[in-house]
């Protein structure tokens, strides 16, 4: 069914189709219309779920962690400082191996306060052991939300579905809402391997010693480090698992095929712009303009950021002359994290290659600073040269200093 709706509503409809059973909701701009829509769907009986209006984001994820541990499919959503407030719980959910799905409506972090879009919130959670998927438009928001539940429950790792605040959350686009019956076949009910049950009592996530120790049957069993190692292993396993989920989705709904990367005019490109989220689509216009001038440039969007599909990314990008990475976040004191991750992947795969692409990093759009096509055009025009960058420093676009 084709609708014209906002990105937040696209996410809400995805959660409804996924038949989430417990929804924890705390309001924060620009996520609020998402949870408001869910409350409308639940109160009107269109969606059967427990709607829990919590008193903080930390509690929102606490509710989801506990609900999933007790056997229910759970969901929450947040942005910026709400995500930061949840950080302790984000780490907890990953270590507890719970298949939670959370939408992060990307917004900049305080201090100082901002409500506008950038990626600093989700990027700050990069290393927590959550799977991170970035959507570029409304269709991808609803599709990725559905795939997220399937993937999470397959590998037992929580998934963050990230999409740009305001740019996607509050704009209206046409998209297809998948058929509920087909979704039920794609995503069966949540059947956990274990959930809290008096008939099968167990104590979850108690203090775990540094070293291994015998269980009640006298068998030696894992320690903390093994449990964390298995999280890492299963995250790596999520890379091929995502491809399988994507394939199954494509067979059911006719959309997909680019689970990790989505390229535009990269086939014959010499230089490729790389980014996360809706900026990649904005860059397509700029790419077209540059192509008209004979600059052989393309743009590649990264959908799966964690686990980082390093081999796939390196294979896809190592043959280009140069990569220009546009990021709406950075690791302060160093550079954009996507830039670092790219360079790291390329390092391994171009060790004996004799040549490797140059990588330039642009930081832009922080706190919602407007990203203009002329700015992008100039940055790409300057960067896409055979000799590569002049200096290796991270560059900023759109700064306005006075005096």
């Amino acid at each position, binding site marked *: 069914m084709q609708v014209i709706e906002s990105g937040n509503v696209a996410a809400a409809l995805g959660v409804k189709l996924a038949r989430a059973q417990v929804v*924890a909701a705390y309001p924060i701009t620009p996520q609020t219309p998402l949870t408001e829509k869910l409350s409308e769907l639940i109160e009107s009986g269109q969606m059967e779920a427990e709607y829990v*209006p919590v008193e903080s984001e930390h*509690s929102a994820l606490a509710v989801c962690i*506990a609900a999933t541990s007790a056997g229910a499919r759970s969901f929450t959503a947040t942005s910026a400082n709400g995500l930061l407030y949840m950080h302790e719980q984000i780490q*907890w959910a990953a270590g507890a191996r719970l298949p939670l799905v959370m939408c992060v409506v990307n917004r900049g972090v305080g201090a100082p306060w901002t409500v506008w879009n950038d990626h600093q919130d989700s990027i700050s959670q990069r290393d927590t052991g959550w799977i991170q998927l970035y959507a570029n438009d409304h269709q991808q928001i609803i599709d990725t939300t559905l795939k997220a539940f399937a993937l999470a429950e397959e590998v037992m790792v929580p998934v963050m579905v990230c999409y740009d605040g305001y740019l996607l959350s509050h704009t209206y686009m046409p998209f297809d809402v998948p058929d509920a019956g087909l979704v039920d076949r794609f995503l069966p009910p949540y059947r956990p391997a274990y959930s*809290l049950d008096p008939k099968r009592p167990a104590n979850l996530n108690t203090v775990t010693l540094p070293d291994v120790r015998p269980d009640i049957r006298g068998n030696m069993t894992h320690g903390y480090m093994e449990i964390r190692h298995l999280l890492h292993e299963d995250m790596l396993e999520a890379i091929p698992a995502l491809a399988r989920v994507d394939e199954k989705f494509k067979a059911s709904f006719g959309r997909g095929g680019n689970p990790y990367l989505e390229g535009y005019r990269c086939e014959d490109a010499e230089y490729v712009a790389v980014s996360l989220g809706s900026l990649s689509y904005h860059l397509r216009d700029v790419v077209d303009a540059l192509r008209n001038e004979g600059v052989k440039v393309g743009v590649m969007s990264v959908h799966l950021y964690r686990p980082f599909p390093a081999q796939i990314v390196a294979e896809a990008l190592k043959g280009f002359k140069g990569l220009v990475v546009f990021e709406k976040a950075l690791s302060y004191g160093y550079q954009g994290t996507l830039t670092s991750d790219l360079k790291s992947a390329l390092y391994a795969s171009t060790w004996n290659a004799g040549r490797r692409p140059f990588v330039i990093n642009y930081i832009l759009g922080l706190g919602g600073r407007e990203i203009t096509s002329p700015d992008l055009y100039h940055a790409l025009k300057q960067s896409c040269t055979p000799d590569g960058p002049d200096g290796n420093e991270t560059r900023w676009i759109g700064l306005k200093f006075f005096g």
Partner: protein
Amino acid sequence: MQVKTNILSLPEEELVYPGNRACAGCALGIAYRIGLKALGPDTIIVVPPSCLTVLQGLYPVAATRIPSLNVTFASTAAAATGVLAALKAQGKKGVNVVGWAGDGGTADIGLQSLSGACERGDDFLYVCYDNEAYMNTGVQRSGTTPKGAITANTPYKGKLQQKKDVSAIIAAHGIEYVGTTSAAYPLDLYDKFRKALTFGGVKYIHIHIPCPPGWGFAPQYAVKVGKLAVETGLFELSEIEHGRLRHTGASRKLMEKRKLLPVREYFRSQSRFNAITDEEIEAIQQNVTKRWECYFESLDDIEGEE
């Protein structure tokens, strides 16, 4: 009216295994054993960092025979809400959901989520076991540490601030049942647990828990010290049912007898009060006496009604 329990009518089955890591003489051990008997095996318990976490066992051995969920420090009540929501969503009935936290996890870091749960009216039992400090991390002061108590971070002058009246704060949310009890009075504790489960929304029980190493007395006196707290009138066994306060058990008897033991006996039984002067004890005694005089007078009104 609920039939009062006696020792022989308590369930015999133990839902906690021995050989756990609680200190010798830990009054939480008493409260937890008896509390679980009241709850029964069809219970899911949520536990934040606390002595109870450790009593419940280190991976992969659990001392507790009911399903338990360890959660982050601030989130006990929110997690209990989550368990409840999941059970409801799956149509599972007949399971008691309990959040069981220490005084730090309730009155300090956990207060926000508990307040939220009370306001939402989520149907679970919240138990605060109050050993009056962050005992698990080595006896640091908490919101419920009494004034004058020496702790690891109030080492010479003793705590300068008053003990937080948590049960009053929770009662102000208008929940249906708030009970205060003590590990020294396990039958009163058992009855309150059983009674609390008959109410809706969040039920709150506050348990006074003497702690031998933290309070500074020999382990064999754990029950004696607990009884002194009540018999001096410093700690009250009570319940607030739909907003109406009444005292129970030994505290009720004090109202009838109109006689309290001197608070001095309580303060001088524990080395944590070594910094309290006789003058300060006298001031506390006056406050306690005044408060209980109001209770003695109100007994006439209550007995008039009954």
